[in-house]
């Protein structure tokens, strides 16, 4: 029973982080119809910023509680980067075929990957004292790190917050209107350029937050962005490109399958995930929750 609970918690932990990454990716696609191949790098960027900010503060007099808050610097930095990138790089391309949009984000992915190496060097950064600082819980006869529970809570809060933001605020209405029909929204007086920047920034903020909260547990490593991107793809393909509910369900499914995979079929765990995405695309091209 305890082991089952631990497996469920692990699956949720994984799903929480994946939702933050994939939710942002899906939000950006939903509003702007752009598949951002550099999205994983924004997640990595958030992780590196968080790790370096907290790493600097950790030996000083800052109380532990504030250090956890300092992780949010990663999310803010990723959002700021996103707010800079959208008007400069993506905006000139909206009228061009989507191949070009895919290509420019691929170029951006290459640049950001090396930018991270340039700024922080080739070695991983870690702030494991934050992970250890929360101690662990006893679940039956097993122990489980409290920090992991905190990540699950953050993921859940982010999902709830995003839902409220999109379905309960004025901004959310504008965002959904633009997503459903950009021209019509524009005709009704919506400043589409501004909505695009806001959506892109929000998506990057989520990715950066995802990066920031995994740092205490896994550290910030080069290449983490590329790996995360492909898994986020799997999530959004399963859930449906552009659908937030889909991203949530997709993240949960991937979290569960991955936890099962690590336990029962480690060799083909990744292959099974990619195949799952392929099968969903075949059966429902728009994903489980997408609209075609």
């Amino acid at each position, binding site marked *: 029973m305890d082991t089952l609970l631990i497996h469920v918690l692990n699956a949720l932990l994984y799903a929480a982080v994946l939702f933050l990454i994939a939710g942002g990716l899906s939000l950006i696609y939903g509003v702007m119809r752009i598949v951002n191949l550099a999205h994983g790098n924004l997640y990595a960027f958030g992780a590196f910023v968080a790790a370096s900010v907290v790493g600097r503060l950790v030996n000083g007099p800052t109380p532990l509680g504030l250090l956890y808050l300092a992780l949010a610097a990663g999310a803010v930095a990723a959002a700021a980067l996103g707010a800079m990138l959208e008007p400069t790089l993506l905006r000139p391309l909206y009228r061009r075929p989507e191949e070009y949009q895919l290509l420019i984000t691929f170029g951006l992915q290459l640049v950001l990957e*090396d930018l991270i*190496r*340039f700024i922080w060097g080739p070695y991983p950064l870690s702030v494991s004292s934050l992970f250890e600082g929360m101690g662990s819980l006893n679940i039956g006869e097993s122990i489980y790190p409290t920090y992991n529970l905190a990540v699950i809570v953050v993921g859940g809060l982010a999902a709830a917050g995003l839902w409220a933001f999109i379905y309960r605020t004025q901004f959310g209405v504008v965002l959904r209107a633009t997503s459903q029909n950009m021209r019509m929204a524009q005709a009704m007086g919506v400043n589409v350029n501004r909505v695009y920047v806001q959506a892109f920034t929000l998506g990057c903020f989520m990715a950066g937050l995802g990066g920031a909260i995994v740092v205490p547990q896994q550290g910030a490593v080069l290449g983490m962005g590329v790996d995360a991107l492909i898994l986020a793809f799997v999530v959004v393909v399963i859930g449906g490109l552009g659908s937030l509910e889909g991203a949530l369900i997709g993240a949960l499914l991937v979290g569960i399958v991955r936890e099962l995979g690590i336990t029962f079929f480690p060799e083909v765990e*990744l292959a099974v995930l990619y195949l799952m995405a392929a099968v969903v*695309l075949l059966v429902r091209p728009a994903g489980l929750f997408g609209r075609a």
Partner: protein
Amino acid sequence: MSPAPAPTRRLLTAAGPIIVALAVLPYVVEPYQTVLLSYGLIFAIAALGFNLLLGYTGLLSFGHSAYFGVGAYAVAFVVKYLRVSSMEVFLLGGIVASALVSALIGVVCVRYTRIYFSILTLALSQVLWSLAFKFFWVTGGTDGLRVPTPALLGVGIGAGQDKMGYLAHRYYYYVLVIFLAAVALMWVIVHSPFGKALQAIRDNETRAEFVGVQVWHYRWVAFLISGVFTGLAGALWVPLNGLTTPDILHWSFSGEIVFFTVLGGFGTFAGPIVGAVVFNYLKTFAVGYTVYWQMLLGVVLMLLVLGLPTGIVGTTIRLWRKGRTTA
């Protein structure tokens, strides 16, 4: 004998001097340069295949590393399990394996277009990558599999013969001949009724269907041909590299194939060839020049997309035509 049609005649006039230059090259430049160009020509074969989908059928595959990698791993398996080291067997293995894999993946993917096609090809190529990565007792995992320098047409590398010289001369000519054959074959394909049908599908799928083109079927055949060209390139690449690792199955290598096709320009026949050769020099230079070579390539790609979307060849043609009309 009737004279060749106009575009073919133009190709032959343009290609003649280039072929001569390529043929005398090993006698003029350092062996290193010849080997470098061999890589470029091999990537050009892959790009030709890739562009049959992107430029002629209008499908952007982000998973062509799969067929390149399958071609390369098929060769490595021939060496590992059959203990054969003949280039012709290598090529056969690479072609058969990539045909099987692209036929299978193609059946699944050709039902989709646009972004769904790109993501689906990407996801399926990642399946192969993860298998190569995890099944290390078969594939060697990240260490990869070694491939010795093979015998060409039954004649192997002599005892005490310099390997670099062998690669820079005999292997280079072998690659060159196959490259020229691949170019000729692709030229015939894109100018055949089949090639015209693909372009019709690219321009307007619904109309193509109305005039009787079986869209899925044609796309599938194009996918298969595309995969086999890329697999052939993989099979030619692996003896030159001496080693195959999961890296060439990873989607970032697919990105490179896309990159060099766009660099040359996917709207023209010669674009991918020029792009592959130039990209190979560019990457070699960038890797030797800075550890941040990815950033350099990324910046080049972004500038291309923003400034020269028709690529090197497309832009050159446009400038040349403009020059002629104003002169």
